[in-house]
């Protein structure tokens, strides 16, 4: 981990424990977020995006468990902290905003009170000072006449306003890391653009890191510095945003990008990725995308693909870019020597 990393997730495994068995959902993911950087985690529903963010916050449901790996925040492993230590970090150093602005605010409390609650808790300010800070925060997120708004209840605000309030709440203690779990999904596009612009502005002003969870590649292109593409609990591709859109390598990423409608071309039908995500207990032995991949061979079904690095930290987990792909494609067989050559391969042309 370099000293500039705000957050580094190393070999994280998360799953659900029931009486008999442990179902692994996230299987060994790695990524890091530098100070002042935005990382987008992309993937379809159920691929473990939200679970990743909940693991960082330490808010996994009761049966959820981090079984392996570490989450280093400022060099400190969060997985080893107890509830009391964690609650000092939550809302203070790491904040979170949620998908549904309509239900993320408590209907029975005024918004000023809700914002100042965590200010009083973490910054030990008086109620009066906290209220002033709440007004400042509302001003910061662009809410008009904030001194009146703090006396309003959530139902008196529109969806976009509420999401701004949520952002104000999350930023009220100057967190080092903001986790945004699909913050714009429930909003209409114009409001969506405003919120993204606001987040970009605040990121530079407050110099914080953002992890944005989304399934909308449009949002990714607006806000991300780096992108982590996840599929079925594994990372398939990790790269900076320009490279990803200019030169997507993994067949899954390519599929995602192709399935966005293009404005400058006439399309009768959008390309789709055939099939559906396999359930956690019937994952293929090899590459998890192999059941839906147009290029899949025997090797893909049976052997976990190696990570292949390219320029500027571009990483792809796919057999297709290994040096022995041609042999693998023809013969479909792997021996130990080939595995070594494969792992040593470099991604060309990225």
């Amino acid at each position, binding site marked *: 981990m370099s000293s500039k990393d705000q957050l580094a997730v190393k070999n994280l495994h998360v799953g659900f424990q029931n009486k008999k068995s442990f179902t692994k959902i996230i299987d060994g993911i790695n990524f890091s977020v530098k100070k002042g950087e935005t990382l987008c985690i992309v993937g379809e529903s159920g691929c473990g995006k939200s679970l990743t963010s909940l693991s960082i*916050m330490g*808010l996994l449901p009761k049966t959820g468990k981090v079984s392996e790996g570490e989450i280093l925040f400022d060099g400190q492993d969060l997985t080893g902290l107890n*509830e*009391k230590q964690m*609650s*000092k*970090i*939550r*809302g*203070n150093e790491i*904040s*979170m905003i*949620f*998908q*549904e602005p309509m*239900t*993320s*605010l*408590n*209907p*029975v*409390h005024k918004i000023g009170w809700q914002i100042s*609650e*965590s200010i009083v*808790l*973490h910054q030990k300010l008086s109620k009066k000072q906290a209220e002033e800070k709440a007004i400042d925060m509302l001003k910061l997120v662009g809410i008009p006449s904030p001194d*009146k708004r703090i*006396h309003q*209840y959530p*139902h008196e605000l529109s969806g976009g306003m509420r999401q701004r309030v*949520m952002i104000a*709440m*999350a930023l009220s203690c100057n967190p080092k890391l903001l986790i945004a779990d699909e913050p714009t999904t429930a909003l209409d596009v114009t409001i969506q653009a405003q919120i993204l612009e606001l987040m970009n502005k605040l990121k530079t002003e407050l110099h914080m890191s953002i992890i944005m969870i989304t399934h909308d590649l449009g949002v990714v292109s607006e806000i991300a510095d780096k992108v982590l593409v996840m599929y079925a609990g594994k990372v398939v591709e990790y790269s900076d945003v320009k490279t990803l859109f200019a030169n997507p390598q993994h067949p899954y990423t390519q599929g995602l990008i192709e399935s966005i409608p293009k404005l400058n071309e006439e399309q009768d039908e959008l390309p789709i990725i055939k099939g559906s995500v396999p359930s956690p207990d019937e994952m293929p032995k090899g590459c998890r995308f192999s059941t839906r991949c147009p290029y899949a061979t025997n090797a893909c079904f049976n052997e976990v693909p190696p990570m292949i690095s390219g320029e500027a930290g571009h990483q792809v987990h796919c057999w297709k870019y290994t040096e022995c792909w041609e042999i693998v494609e023809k013969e479909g067989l792997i021996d130990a020597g080939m595995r070594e050559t494969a792992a040593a391969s470099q991604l060309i042309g990225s």
Partner: protein
Amino acid sequence: MAQLQEATIKEVKVQSPRATMYMGMLKRFLQNKLAVVAGFFIVLLIGSALFAPAVAPYDPGAQDYTKIMNSPSAEHWMGTDEIGRDIFSRVIFGARVSLQAGLISVAIALGVGIPVGLIAGYYRGFLDEIIMRITDALLSFPSLVLALALAAVLGAGLENAMIAIGIVLTPNFIRLVRAEVLAHREREYVEAAKASGLRDWRVILVHIFPNTLAPMMVQATLAIASAIISEASLSYLGLGTQPPTPSWGAMLSAGQGYLADAPWIAIAPGIFIFLTVISINLFGDGVRDMLDPKLK
């Protein structure tokens, strides 16, 4: 016209937001005519119960053998009973017992039901399972039979009757609070509260509990009403208030024997039980509507 508008704007500005909110709530309450009438009756009843010695024209225990079972008259507004006591005075003094029974037994039920329900609903698991099975067991008895059994075990008397009624009412509150907590604990604002670093107890008390208040308020008023009826029933059966203290239930019971000759002995306390119970229910509805911020 313009002047008028200016004046209105000035007026609005003078009031603080909090004051405007309370004004709005009061206005909403006053719109509900039935609730206002009910509230008026309750205030009247509480007032006369508090100042019973001043309000009641006679000593509720004073017997006058020259006026046995007199029908209502200017002298005795509700007539006299079988040993010549003034029924109106006895009804006024009986209000003390009934209101006390209603409030205290519901307070007992709330005091036990709210914390137990909050804990069961929030933490779930084994503890929840045990609590719910106990409430199921309690709910499986007809409530009056259970109250009767408990009162019989504890011994006759108003205090014990209130404890018994409180125990009988508790499972309803546990269930209600737990159900509300279950509905609210999965909402995103609870997760958001946890994500802002709040500890469990604060999430429960400050974020979840206030959201359970509206249905609880209604349930509590209903429970006060049914506690008054239960106390009257227990007194009627001889397990509640002991003579000579007047109580509506005991008066009803005593009047039963003279229903053909002097119906007013039973009718007076009966009407008061009815009016009190219905007023409390209507008032409770009004309060709920007033408190709901969405009905502004």
